[in-house]
């Protein structure tokens, strides 16, 4: 049981990070129906910038929290700039092009950003300096670290803040109006280009925070870290219903939990030696506590995409999705 709780804790932490990244996907999709495949790379750049700053300051003797905050403080503007230039240079010129064009461009931007990062930070793994003392607490048999608590708490705060922004501010109203109908919003005096740029910038800022969180949690950052993370967050966004802000949050958390539980249990469930008849048929392989595992933990990364496919087949609009029609 405590193992199950532990897997849930692992999944929740992971899911919280997915949720923050998924928000970036879903906001951009909601407003211009573009799947910004370069979003994962923005997360990576956030982590890399923060790590560089934190590594440089690690020896300065400042309190760890201050160092990390300075790191985040540097990562956010850099990512915002990346997000803004991405929109301005790569996507805005294609605003009225056929839908496939910006999609391909997004993939291109992703590759460019990844290779730029490789040039700047080399192929090597950057280690997070060991400045944060990891405290562990035991909760219902599961071990929870202070980093995990911080990640989940921060994610909740960010989600609340974003919900406030989208539903309670003028910019949020403009964003929702633009999402509903760009032309009419423009006619009502909304500066559509500014709103779209703002959406990219906010998404990029969230990505920077997510990058620092994921980097701090695992202790490493590398120029390739963004692609799989981005794809999973995209799956989370689709799971919750792409274009839907609460959906991205729900999808992220769900996906994280599914992945942790899946990786934790699939090996046992598909160990054919556990099943009497099959174990007999396999004979030698199972004798003496042997194993014949059909799907092992190496399928961990596959769960996100299995979930994605299942959702697309059974409920194309996602869990909280609406207004499908011309979208998905």
């Amino acid at each position, binding site marked *: 049981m405590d193992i199950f709780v532990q897997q849930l804790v692992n999944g929740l932490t992971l899911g919280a990070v997915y949720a923050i990244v998924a928000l970036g996907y879903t906001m951009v999709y909601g407003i211009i129906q573009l799947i910004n495949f370069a979003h994962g790379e923005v997360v990576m750049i956030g982590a890399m910038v923060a790590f560089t700053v934190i590594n440089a300051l690690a020896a300065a003797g400042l309190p760890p929290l201050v160092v990390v905050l300075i790191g985040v403080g540097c990562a956010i503007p850099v990512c915002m700039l990346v997000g803004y230039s991405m929109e301005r240079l790569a996507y805005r010129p294609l605003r009225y092009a056929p839908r496939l064009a910006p999609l391909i461009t997004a993939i291109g931007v992703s590759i460019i950003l990844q290779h730029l990062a490789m040039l700047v930070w080399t192929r090597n793994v950057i280690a997070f300096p060991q400045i944060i003392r990891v405290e562990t607490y035991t909760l219902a048999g599961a071990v929870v670290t202070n980093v995990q608590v911080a990640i989940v708490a921060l994610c909740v705060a960010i989600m609340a803040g974003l919900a406030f922004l989208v539903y309670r501010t003028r910019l949020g109203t403009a964003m929702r109006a633009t999402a509903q109908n760009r032309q009419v919003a423009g006619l009502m005096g909304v500066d559509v280009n500014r709103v779209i740029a703002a959406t990219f910038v906010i998404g990029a800022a969230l990505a920077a925070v997510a990058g620092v969180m994921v980097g701090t949690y695992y202790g490493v950052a590398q120029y390739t870290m963004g692609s799989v993370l981005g794809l999973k967050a995209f799956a989370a966004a689709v799971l919750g219903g792409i274009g839907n802000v609460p959906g991205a949050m729900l999808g992220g958390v769900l996906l994280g939990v599914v992945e942790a539980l899946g990786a*934790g249990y699939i090996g046992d469930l598909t160990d054919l030696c556990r099943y009497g008849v099959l174990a007999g048929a396999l004979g030698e392989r199972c004798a003496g506590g042997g194993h014949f*595992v059909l799907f*092992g933990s190496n399928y961990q990364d596959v769960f996100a995409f299995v979930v994605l496919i299942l959702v697309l087949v059974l409920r194309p609009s996602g869990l909280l999705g609406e207004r499908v029609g011309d979208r998905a």
Partner: protein
Amino acid sequence: MNQSKLALTLLAAVVGLIGCGKEEPKKPPVVQEAPPPPPAIEIKIGHVGPLTGGIAHLGKDNENGARLAIEEANAAKIKIDGKDAKLVLVAEDDQADPKVGTTVAQKLVDAKVAGVVGHLNSGTSIPASSIYNAAGIPVISGSATNPKLTEQGFKQQFRVVARDDQQGPAIASYLAANNKPKLVAVIDDATAYGEGLANEVEKALKAASIKVLAREKGTDKTTDWKAILTKLKGRKPDAIFYGGMDATGGPLVKQGRELGIKAVFSFGDGACTDEMTKLAGAAAEGMLCSQAGIPPQAADAKFRDAYKKKFNVDPILYAPFTYDAANLLIEGMKKANSADPAKYLPELAKIDYTGATGRIAFDEKGDRKDAEITIFTMKGGKIEPLAVIKGGKTIPYAEFGKAAAPAAAAEPVKDAPKADAPKDAAKK
């Protein structure tokens, strides 16, 4: 680049001239004052390693080892076939790049070298080996550990360092003998290197009647091991072995300790680096890991003194091995009384020689028999040698390195990850 290579070759030639100039046959008027000496022959021995780029210091270290052997042989005025032999080291730079590696291999073949010491990396050694093989030139590597190098059936390819697949049994036998685990979990990163190593460990553990859990797998980019580790925590293994690199192994051990797993973490050479402390902090303390070969501090004291005297630095990593490799070539020539590769190759294959790294004999593949593997542990943020495994026997490090000071031993090994970096390209 060609210019720098030319410069290096010239430099090598100049150093060779200075080092043993008294007998340089091309400048006979200066020295030949004595009554007509027996005609001299010049024997070229090639050395290849990266002399530029990120691991240039290791390439230079390898080259120095070979150079020392050749200069000692020249000082000893060896005679081959009744003639004064004048050995010349032709040092080439392969930049740790497989493409450059084949180019310089061809260059050495064209220069008619009698034998080659190198290359440093498996990734450059393997593609270059077919060129040497076609030319029939004996090659002895002092540092390439990828099994494939000697699995191609090339009769003139040798190595004096242990193979990657000898590490698995070594670390497993150390674990079995010293930690006496009842249950071990084996994880790998699904690369050819990691999975191969993990398979060897699992086989050796099972042979020692130790129970092994179903294999868990990540990838070479996995940083989230929590799900797998949580599952393992429920099984309470006494030891965990991970076949993979430090970039993924660091997070593994860090997260394992965070989850409160008490098992001994053990790794192969890919994660046998000081980098582990950077990645995992205090969690890496006490981990076990293995590296092919022996630390240079455990090499013969005579070699270490001569090296230090000649180059004014300590050997970094594989210099004792390239020193032995060059000596083996010379020894083979002396035995066959010929520098003709076709003639001395059979002698080399059946040689039994005691060098700076101990006794050397080759098996039928050209691998060193009973090659040593060193087991390290992480202590105070540095990896420190614990024991040397040789021919299935565990020898405590303190007894193995006769005059070795363990305090100094930890220092040079931190360069190992850099040496591994290009090698891994071939492993994966």
